[in-house]
């Protein structure tokens, strides 16, 4: 078995979203999770720029410059949608009303710290958007990321070295090689693997790992 493609990672994550959940999909790869949420899932998508009931990407004639997602791409509106202003949208996020958000990450720590807004490089222009609000506000935070950097080091780490987005906020990490459950103070639990053995995972990751036991 080989590691998952980006599309397969999104599909695996989408499978774990409860029916009827209110969900915010972060910009970039997390947005593609929406492609795996059929209408019968009843999942309602939130976009922080002021909408619940966001539909799929708009194309051709359906493109409307007034209707975009948080990544500023044209999207569509589903029946039962609602629009609201930014303070109301972030009140919804920060007040603990979203069941779930899906975010990308540079690093996640074993205790669930998230680093996803700033590489920490001295010449990088910082840009945080709504990441800190989603991370502290959503009832559950799922991270979707490749497990290893291009140079082969793990992005699931003992302690984040990149600047933090929020402390102890991540519940699950979906990667190309494995899906992890963060328990907070205990070891990180491995739920599934693809193209890597548990012992190899243990060898390459500098975090305490255990198999998830249902």
């Amino acid at each position, binding site marked *: 078995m080989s590691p998952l493609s980006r599309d397969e990672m999104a599909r695996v994550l989408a499978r774990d979203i409860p*029916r*009827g959940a*209110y969900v915010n999909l972060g910009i970039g790869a997390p947005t593609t999770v929406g492609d795996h949420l059929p209408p019968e899932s*009843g999942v*309602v998508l*939130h976009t922080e720029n002021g909408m*619940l*009931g966001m539909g799929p990407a708009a194309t051709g004639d359906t493109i409307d410059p007034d209707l975009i997602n948080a990544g500023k791409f044209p999207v569509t*509106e*589903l*029946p*039962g*949608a*609602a*629009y*609201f202003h930014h303070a109301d949208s*972030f*009140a*919804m996020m*920060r*007040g*603990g*009303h*979203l069941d779930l958000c899906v975010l990308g990450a540079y690093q996640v720590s074993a205790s669930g710290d998230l680093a996803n807004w700033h590489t920490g490089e001295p010449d990088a222009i910082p840009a945080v958007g709504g990441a800190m609000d989603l991370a*502290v*506000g959503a009832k559950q935070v799922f991270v979707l990321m490749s497990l290893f950097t291009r140079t082969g080091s793990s992005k699931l780490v003992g302690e984040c070295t990149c600047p933090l987005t929020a402390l102890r906020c991540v519940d699950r990490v979906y990667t190309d090689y494995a899906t992890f459950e963060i328990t907070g103070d205990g070891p990180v639990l491995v739920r599934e693997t693809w193209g890597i053995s548990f012992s190899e995972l243990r060898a390459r990751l500098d975090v305490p790992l255990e198999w998830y036991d249902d």
Partner: protein
Amino acid sequence: MTLLCASADEAVSGIADGSTVLVGGFGPAGMPFALIDALIRQGARDLTVVSNNAGNADTGLAALLAAGQVRKIVCSFPRQTDSWVFDELYRTGKIELEVAPQGNLAERLRAAGAGIGGFYTRTGVGTLLAEGKETREIDGRTYVLEWPIAADVALISAHTADTLGNLVYRKTARNFAPVMATAATTTVVQVGSVVEPGALDPEAVVTPGIYVDRIVAL
């Protein structure tokens, strides 16, 4: 997900003794009469009720008070010409009263719904209602620190819902309902009618369905 209930009794089921219950309405406008009547039948006791008033005449919130189910009420304006039920309970020491400025009531409910841990306001500075409260000088003016009011249940009334729980209201019956809907773990709504998704104008939805747990159409 929003649950469509067959009756007001189903809608209020499970409300526990000792709960904090937000009750919408400004006087009778927007008062969720059917849900309150169902709560009287349901019988939960020892409640803390948060509402703008303390009941009018003998129906609605006044009837809940008369039924002896309320231990404490948090409101801005209990004393009214027709608040005889509350007045009697209060004067005989059978109910506890916390009076809050109406704007603090609204803002504290919003804070609970918006994840705000506390906020500074000029309302109440130098008055009995700020006695014992923390104050702070900000840009040369004194502010009082106020805390969120979070609740177990909100009982509110709306004009129309769709099946996803999106709500619209009618005129000044809107009042506290939208903020209360955000501040409770379980928000229960009585509505005039329920329509299919897409029937409400998405630009005019006041309470998005994410805040609505149970609906009953009357």
